[in-house]
Structures are given as C-alpha cells and as structure tokens.
C-alpha cells in the first residue's frame, strides 16, 4: 500500500429529503481488496455508484490515482464494473460484449481479437466467443462480465454484489475464484456486499456501513474481534450482548455488573465507572465447567437451560444469575466436557475476548 489507489473525502449524497450517504471518508490502497459491507439501505451501493460516476456526490471529493474524478463522467474514469445482474449486452455475442470497451475507446483494431481471446482464457471461457448471453449459465455470465470489465485494464475494479444471483454452491466456488483472480492481477478492488462471510473471506479491509456512515473500518479480524459498536458486532457474526454498568476499571479491563453478576471485558474506548455499557462476547469464546475455573477472574455460575446439537458444534443456552442469558458454543471433540441440561456450571470468558461497547 505504497500510495493510495482510491480516496473518498467526506462524501455526502442527498436525494431530496433522504441522506443516503453522510460523510464517508476512506482510502483504498493500491492492489487492495476493499469491501463495503452493510444491510440494504446503508449507503454502500450509493457510495459505489458515486465512485463509478453514476451518481454525483452532494459534497466531498473522490480521487483515483491522484486525479480528482468527482466531476468526471463514468466513461472518463477508466474503471471496470461488474453488476449484480451482470448486465451482459443481450444482443451481442460474448466476443462483442468483451470487445465493447476496447472498440468504443480506440475502435476495432488488430489487437482486439487477441485481447478478447486472452481475457476469455483468463476467466476460463476459452472458445466461448460466438455464444450469445442467453446460452450461458449464471456462473458463465459472471465470468464474461468480469472479463469484459478487466479487458480494458482499468485502474479500479468495482463489484456490486456479484455473487448474490448465484446459487449457494456456485457462490462459494466463485468467491475463491474471484479472490484468486484479483490477487493474481493485483488490481485495486472495491466490493459491495451485505454478506459478512463474503466480505470476511475476500477482503484485505472492510468498511462496515450503517445509515450512510462508516461504523468501522479495518481488517476482517479486527472487525470481528474488536467491533467498535453494537451494530458492527451484531451485523458481523453472532454475539452475546450483555447490558450492564461499569463498577471498576483495572488497566485495560473493566468490571461490569450485569445485575447480580460481575463479569470482565476489555476496554477499547474510554469509559467511566458507573457508565451503562454493553459487553460483547462471541459464543465460541464462552467457556464452561473446568475451563471456566481456570480463568483469571471468578466466573459466575450459570444453569444450562438448553442444548442444541449441530454436529461439529454444540450450542448451550445458559442462564446467569439476574436473568442474564448467554449462548456458548463448543467444538464437539471427543475430549470435551459433557454438560447435562439443568446442570449448574461456571461460565465465563477470557477477559480479552469480551469487549466493552459504549455506542
């Protein structure tokens, strides 16, 4: 990430009374795979459309490769885009679809056929030149759309939920294929999705968006393990969200009272004693029984009130004193400790894997 590939500086978008994007600032490094992740209506698609030039920001700047492109029309931005429905031109053969970008830029030339051929080989569709889009499967159309976007050697590749129209099995396959292609080409990529597992698998960094703002920006591990807000921890993966009040601060840890139960969690942002907070713990970090006894702090005793067998994983529902519900997941290994329903067991987590959230 020597210098910035793409930069958004305080970008806003207002549609009449609706604020779709409220001050998004981010930098995407050269060759980086960057995802905009969020629920529908969070502003991720609008942000992508502003980068592509299909929507004009109400204010703010967009800079690509050091050039301010905010006011440029889409055709002058030199970027490749893959649409949710692929947007393959239905009246053109695969060859003409892929050659389109070359032909409108420089006119048909001797190198066109070669480039189209090379690009079809790159996406594993050699020999498909004469087919029409209606003769292609969803996965093949997806590959044609990628080849068409990449053949013009764009500075930036934009992907708008490219996997959402595929069935589950193909989606998994294409996910790894796209990742592989992107890292081979080293092209700067912005990927829009509402699917957290896609974003986690593919991205170098993720911007989690909500209500037109970026709630958190960072690598997948950071987003998952150290969520900045309740929204982020709720949107990414599964989590226990325990409401309580800070009773003491010890270095990077806070003691939080959940009613009658005292627990510990990591402090990432400044908090005061007495402040109302949420403690976030991932179910896989909750330990039970003997393991909970070895924690550095006294784990509360809870009652197992439910067990769900999921094959590789066993899910327990635990009730802590003061009517606090906790979900724990443990791997179903042969040496695991078995807990019968209604048993009273210590339940806790390493203080570093619980996170104090204030907003």
């Amino acid at each position, binding site marked *: 990430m020597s210098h910035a590939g793409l930069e958004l500086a305080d970008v806003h978008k207002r549609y009449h009374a609706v604020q779709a994007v409220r001050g998004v600032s981010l930098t995407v490094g050269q060759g980086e795979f960057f995802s905009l992740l969020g629920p529908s209506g969070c502003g991720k698609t609008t942000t992508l459309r502003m980068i592509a030039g299909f929507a004009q920001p109400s204010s703010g700047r967009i800079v690509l490769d050091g050039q301010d492109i905010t006011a440029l029309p889409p055709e002058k931005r030199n970027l490749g885009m893959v649409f949710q429905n692929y947007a393959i*031109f239905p009246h053109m053969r695969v060859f003409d679809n892929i050659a389109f970008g070359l032909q409108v830029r420089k006119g048909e030339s001797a190198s066109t056929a070669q480039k189209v051929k090379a690009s079809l080989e790159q996406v594993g569709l050699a020999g498909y030149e004469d087919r029409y889009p209606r003769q292609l499967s969803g996965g093949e159309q997806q590959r044609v759309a990628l080849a068409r976007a990449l053949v013009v050697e764009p500075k930036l590749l934009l992907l708008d939920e490219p996997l959402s129209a595929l069935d589950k099995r193909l989606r998994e396959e294409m996910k790894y294929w796209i990742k592989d292609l992107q890292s081979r080409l080293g092209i700067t990529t912005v990927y829009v999705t509402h699917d957290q597992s896609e974003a986690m698998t593919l991205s170098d960094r993720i911007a989690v968006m909500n209500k037109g703002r970026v709630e958190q920006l960072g690598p997948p591990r950071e987003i998952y393990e150290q969520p900045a807000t309740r929204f982020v921890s709720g949107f990414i993966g599964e989590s226990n969200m325990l409401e309580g009040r800070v009773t003491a601060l010890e270095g990077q840890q806070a003691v939080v009272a959940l009613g009658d139960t005292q627990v510990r969690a990591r402090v990432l942002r400044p908090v005061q004693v007495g402040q109302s907070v949420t403690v976030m713990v991932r179910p896989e970090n909750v330990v039970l029984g003997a393991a909970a006894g070895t924690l550095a702090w006294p784990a509360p005793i809870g009652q197992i009130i439910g067990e769900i067998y999921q094959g590789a994983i066993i899910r327990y529902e635990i009730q802590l004193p003061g009517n606090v519900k906790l979900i724990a997941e443990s791997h179903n290994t042969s040496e695991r400790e078995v807990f019968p329903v209604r048993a009273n067991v210590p339940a806790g987590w390493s203080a570093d894997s619980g996170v104090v959230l204030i907003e």
Partner: protein
Amino acid sequence: MSEERGLGMPVVFRFGAIVALSFLIVPMLIIVLAGLTAGGYLKFPPEGLSLRWVLAFLGLGPGSYVASTGAAGATTVFIRAFGFSFLLAALSTLASLALGTMAALTLTRHDFPGRAFIQSFFLSPLMLPGIVIGLALFIFYRAAGLGLSRSFTGLLIGHIIICTPFVIRTVSASLYNFDLSLEEAARSLGASPLQTFRQITLPLIMPGITAGSIFSFIVSFGQFDVTVFLAIPEQQTLPLTIFDHLRFHSDPIPAAAGIFAIVLVIVSLLVTARSGDLKAFAGFGKT
C-alpha cells in the same frame, strides 16, 4: 401461463374470436374480389374475374382514369394519390419515430411534476375523434396565419399528431422493462452517452420502434377524417381520392386501389412482424 396456450379457452370465447376475426377479414376479401371483377361496376359478387381494373389503376389499360390535371399523362389520379399517401405516411412515420422515441425516453425515465398529465396529453390523439382534431387544426391554422392552412406542412403536422402516440406507446413498452444497468455498463466501459444510445439502447428497443413504425405508417396511410380538413388542393391522399371517386363514379377502380393498399400493409407486416415485434404494442412483448 397454461402449457397448451389457447386450448384452455372456453368454446364460447373461441367461437366469438372466430366471428370477430371474420368481421375483420371478410370485408377485405370482398374488396379484393370486387377489384378483380371483369364487369364495369363496383359490386359484389364480381361478374367474372380479370385484372382489367388493376391495370386501369396502374394506368396501363382501357378505362384508365386520366388525371384531370393534364401534364402527368398516363399517370392516373389514383397512382398519384397512392404515391402521395405513401410519401405522406413515410414522412409522418419518420417524424413520429423521432418525436415519439424522445418523448417515450423522457416519460419512462424521468420523474417530474406533471408527468402523468403530459403522458395523457401526448396519448390523447388516440382517444379524440379525428374529426375533432381535424376541425381544431383547421381553425387553428386559419387563425394563426402561419401559412399552414391548406399546405403540405400543415397536413404533415396533422398526421404526425395522429401517429406519434402509437410510437410513444410501443417504444414506452420496450423501455419499461429496459435494464438501466446495461447502459451503465456501457458507460463504465468508456462509451459516450451517444455511443451508448446507438449501440446499446437503440438495438434493444428496436422491437418497439419497428412496431411503432408499422402502426404509424398504416394509420397515416389510411387516415381520412383529419385529412379532410387539412387536404391541399393540388394533392389528394388515397382515401380522399377513393371517397371522391365513389361520389361521382361507379367503376371498381377504388376496389383495385384497395387491393394495393392491402398488399402494402401485408408486405410491411410480413417483413417486420416475424420477430414478434407487434407484441410490443400490446405491452406484453419482451424487449
């Protein structure tokens, strides 16, 4: 969406459809047969069959109705009228295509105050009786004093007003299910707005444009009631010529002219309708 289309219809409906179709087709058969008569009068059934009146229409045989305006020589009034109607229909169609396509693009793609009103206004010539439009234009031309009264331009404008709604309807039908991301894809690949329109939008809405041209041409070619008010002294359209002729003569030349009109329409339909373009007019065609 039944798997055997048309077979699931109640017998009554099928019977009704056959009766309705017959009412549409039988008059055309009668005109064709009347035009092929060997006798000297316009009547049905024909008194034997011959090409006599067809040739007369073409100015090629005895009984040709020589143009009273002289210089044209053997060219008959009918041939001239046929040619004039053809020219008028072609020009009206071209103008309606340009105007109607632009209007359809604006009406389907942009939301602005009064859009619904403007849409109904543009389509209103479909609902208004031609006599009303013709009379209104006649009075307007006279009052405006722009030299449109009894001029070719004035007549052409009248026909364009009648034809444009057909183009707006068929082209709008193609545009309603048009996937805008196709245009965005073209733009992001480096195509200018004009290149995008010519290479992506236009080919994809062509079914609507073709259907619109067919309707526009047929409507203009057969137009009578608006034309009556706007007709120019030197040039008569085919429908007016047939009407005039029927008032003063009893020979079957109008029927022979009818044959040519029917052939013209059938040929243009065969040429263009094979691709299912006409479906676009009904609004259920796919683009």
